[in-house]
């Protein structure tokens, strides 16, 4: 209970440091989402390629990501990547998060592509457009639009998931809360504080996603 009283002091006095952590969380999330999007798009296209071996590769990737905890993926990529490639910690963290989200985004995009009426593909073909051109110009633009709400949701999940990179030493929001908690030998008020930050971020993003969703629905 004492902790709860400390909470307000902590919330105000730790503002600067948390803003630093917020900035890292933000960079991590955005970078990993962009890369996850590229990974997701790639595997989504493999999955609908109708080429058995490529589908298997995509299935294997998605199976591995869905079959193991995120924290295991982060640690393996962190130790694996930094060991072999010696890439900086930030990018190892981004890689872990992107590797994870990529599988979920692949499924979102695949679902969106397959939800596009096959008449669209046929219309493209009948006009002499190649498969690739039809995909790029006709199917994907529509699929992305349709995927926006799910992608937004995945982004929100990604921000929460990014808290785990603190365990490889990043000073993101959660990392800041852990170290400040450790320094003061009183974790609770810092964890309450960081919970409030996450709640606010998620709230803002949820409202934004809802707004975009409504806009898209209206323009249909």
């Amino acid at each position: 209970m004492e902790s709860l009283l400390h909470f307000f002091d902590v919330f105000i006095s730790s503002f600067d440091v948390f803003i630093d952590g917020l900035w890292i969380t933000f960079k991590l999330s955005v970078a990993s989402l962009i890369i996850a999007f590229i990974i997701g798009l790639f595997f989504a296209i493999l999955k609908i390629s109708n080429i058995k071996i490529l589908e298997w590769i995509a299935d294997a990737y998605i199976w591995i990501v869905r079959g193991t905890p995120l924290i295991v993926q982060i640690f393996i990529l962190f130790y694996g990547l930094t060991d072999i490639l010696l890439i900086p910690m930030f990018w190892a963290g981004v890689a872990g998060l992107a590797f994870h989200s990529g599988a979920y985004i692949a499924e979102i995009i695949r679902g969106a592509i397959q939800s596009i009426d096959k008449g669209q593909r046929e219309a493209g073909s009948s006009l002499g457009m190649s498969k690739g051109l039809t995909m790029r110009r006709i199917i994907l633009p529509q699929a992305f639009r349709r995927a926006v709400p799910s992608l937004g949701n995945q982004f929100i999940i990604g921000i929460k998931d990014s808290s785990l990179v603190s365990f490889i030493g990043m000073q993101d929001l959660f990392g800041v809360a852990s170290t400040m908690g450790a320094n003061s030998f009183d974790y609770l008020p810092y964890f309450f504080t960081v919970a409030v930050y996450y709640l606010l971020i998620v709230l803002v993003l949820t409202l934004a996603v809802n707004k975009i969703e409504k806009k898209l629905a209206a323009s249909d």
Partner: protein
Amino acid sequence: GSSDEESDSEKNSSDSGESENSFDLVEDGKLTIASSGEFKPFSYMEGSEMIGYDVAVGEAIAEKLGLEAVQKKAKFSGIVTGVNQGRYDIAVASHTITDERLEKVDFSEAYYYSGPVIYTRPDSDIKSAEDLNGKEISVSRGSTYVEMAEEYTENIPQVDSDVVALQSLAKGHHDAVITDDITGLTAIDSGLEIENRGQLGISEQAVAVQQGNDKLLEAVNKALQEMKESGELAELSKEWIGVDITQEPEDVTE
């Protein structure tokens, strides 16, 4: 005398100017130093800056080597691996010298001495080491305290920092925590309700250096030696810890 030594060391570093480049560093001209940042007062965060005794020692070493210090924060349990794999040049992270660690990294001479201590809640009926049998003892993952705890029990929850263990103890989890006495004292100073129920020995804490990087090890040792002789190390100890813990204690038992 001190001016002599200074000029000495200057001479030394300029002498070894060519060998400096053969340190084989993560980044040229920079000494990449790892510390946990969750081990007050040895390393901890103030704002986004890592400070503490370990950090100060690391910086002093870098200065002696004529390099720019780059501090990296890492989970304690991953630091030895990181040094071993060359992610960090050295670790000034309160590592106790052990045989197992020596298989993975080289250690400098000790830069401080301390003793692992049993901490419990004030109302605990654990009065000394004998009472630990079969109890739940939490320790920091990858620390030397794991083995000490294993002498008494199999129930050893391991966490990522000593502070997590001490916090959990104070909050009512676990029966005891084994950690460094300085850390324990700092925790008590910070208001944590725990008590010292006996020291389990003396340990030597040293700087970890990647194996085979003998020149670097040599240079670190030399720097430490100079700091000890000049009293600089003792100064740092007093500054950060309040007492001088850099002298090898005579009496090893409690």
